[in-house]
């Protein structure tokens, strides 16, 4: 009974997320269909006759109504087929597979740096709220939040790459060429993202932690003679992570395909670059495949964040429970 209801909630959530995926991909189809330029002309080259163009359109199925094309694309997706790129004729799956690791590594490193900054800073400033350290951290965070990440990126390139020649300014070295070289290439872009994103993480953690520290059970923990670090890390941190996890999820989701400017500045072949190039080339199958990947990631992260809520708070684990 209890489990039945919990399962219903999970199914409802999954259904909602599936609807989001369908709506987003359909919207993409309809929108890219409105792009003014003509891919058929692009493919058949200069000097193609009207008959040539018609033949290309026929072959690509471009002259069918957009909804029919969407339905047939959706059918292919269900069968695990994403099709081939129109521009390069490479399988879409292949492009995604080669670009995804770059995005994932950038995402992982940047979120890692952001967490390494935000967690200690949030905990310490909440513990010593109002102190000089708190004010200093707050001011520094404020400045960071006002820096666009591309400004930060270029500033760091000027400093670390051009002036001190410590790190490469641009370019991607695959992992197969050695971990050190690979990490060197990711250090600046990941930092550029992290130094802007840690601020909001730190702020929500600080706010929630300050609220938690006023709770009775923290007073009781102090009465129990629990050392300060244990109060912060064992008693107070976990109930204060809700907004933090939510924001972290939103930021992570937006980085898949959203880090395109950083990818551009550092010449990293990530999902964001792939999408932009696909749009410029009006490469419909590639656009669709990329958008599908981005949306699925968004949905997956949403789902994981929901799972995390349950892990954080036992009260949310079972829907109907009054033991």
């Amino acid at each position, binding site marked *: 009974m209890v489990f039945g209801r919990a399962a219903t909630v999970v199914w409802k959530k999954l259904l909602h997320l599936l609807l989001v995926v369908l709506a987003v991909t359909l919207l993409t189809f309809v929108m890219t269909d409105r792009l003014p330029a003509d891919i058929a002309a692009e493919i058949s080259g200069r000097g193609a006759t009207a008959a040539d163009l018609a033949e290309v359109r026929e072959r690509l199925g471009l002259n069918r109504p957009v909804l029919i094309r969407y339905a047939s694309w959706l059918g292919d997706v269900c069968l695990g087929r994403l099709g081939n790129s129109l521009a390069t004729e490479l399988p879409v799956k292949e492009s995604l597979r080669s670009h995804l690791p770059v995005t994932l590594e950038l995402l992982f490193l940047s979120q890692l740096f952001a967490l390494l900054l935000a967690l200690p800073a949030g905990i310490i400033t909440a513990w010593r709220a109002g102190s000089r350290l*708190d004010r200093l951290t*707050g001011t520094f965070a404020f400045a960071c939040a006002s820096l666009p990440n591309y*400004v930060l990126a270029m500033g760091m390139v000027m400093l670390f790459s051009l002036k001190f020649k410590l790190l490469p300014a641009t370019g991607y070295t695959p992992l197969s060429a050695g971990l050190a070289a690979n990490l060197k290439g990711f250090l600046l872009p990941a930092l550029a993202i992290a130094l802007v994103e840690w601020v909001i993480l730190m702020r929500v953690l600080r706010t929630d932690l300050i609220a938690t520290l006023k709770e009775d059970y923290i007073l009781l923990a102090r009465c129990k003679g629990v050392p300060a670090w244990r109060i912060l890390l064992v008693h107070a941190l976990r109930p204060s992570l809700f907004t933090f996890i939510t924001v972290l999820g939103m930021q992570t989701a937006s980085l898949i395909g959203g880090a395109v400017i950083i990818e551009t500045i550092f010449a990293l072949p990530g999902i964001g670059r792939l999408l932009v190039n696909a749009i410029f080339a009006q490469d419909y199958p590639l656009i669709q495949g990329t958008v599908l990947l981005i949306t699925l990631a968004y949905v997956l992260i949403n789902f994981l964040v929901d799972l995390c809520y349950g892990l954080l708070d036992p009260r949310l684990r079972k829907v109907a429970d009054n033991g």
Partner: protein
Amino acid sequence: MADLGRKPGITFYLACGWLALVVLCALCAGVLPLHFTLDQIDSDHLAAGPGGAHLLGTDAMGRDLLVRLLFGSRVSLIVGSCAPLLGLVVGLLLGMPAAWCRGWSERLIMTATDVILAFPALIFLLVFTAILGPKLITITLGLGLLLSPRFIRVVRANTARFREREFILAARIGGAGEVSILLKEVLPNIMGPLLAYTLVVTGYVIVVEGGLAFLGLSVPSPAPSWGGMIAAGRDVLEEAPHVVIFPMATMFLTVLAVNLLGDRLRGRYERS
């Protein structure tokens, strides 16, 4: 923030002063006694450093940086002020009814906002500009529309707080219609926090507009914008860093000033 107490400190006045200066420059850029025009190319001074005839130096094509910076402020200011305002208007138009009527209309509006939030913003902007052309108004419209789901959420959350309040009931008993209650009773109450949010978004929009320049989606090339200047300066980063440093500093200070004001305003409404 802890360092922004009740009394406006020196930072507050500095922020106001800087913004006033930027607005003044944007307004008067056309009538200032400048020695160069926007796209006048000084081929004797390519990527020249600051000083001499060019106060802030020239860019890689020999165009005067100061002049471009002054005129570029118009783009940032117009996009930065109009796009959030558009988002605010859409947010009010859809968010208030959603919170007030509840039921299926609320569900419809909120699901739509969910979908738009999940939709890759890049596609929207790229397609939007591809169809309408990379013009100032396109960028403003596009960013404004992209922002509206966030505004809808904020408006709805703020409006919902007033649904059950006594003075709303009192107005209803007094015979006021629902539309007039929303306009006369609810709107004045939610405007404060909303304006604070709008200011916070303004800083964000200025940043995003600059970022679009990196993808070639901002105002087309000869017209200057801060983001465009930064993006273009990438090629001469090593030889002439001043080409990007000046627009970068200007943008940073402007965003910082806007954020300071927004934070102050937000702090005031959160306290009360």
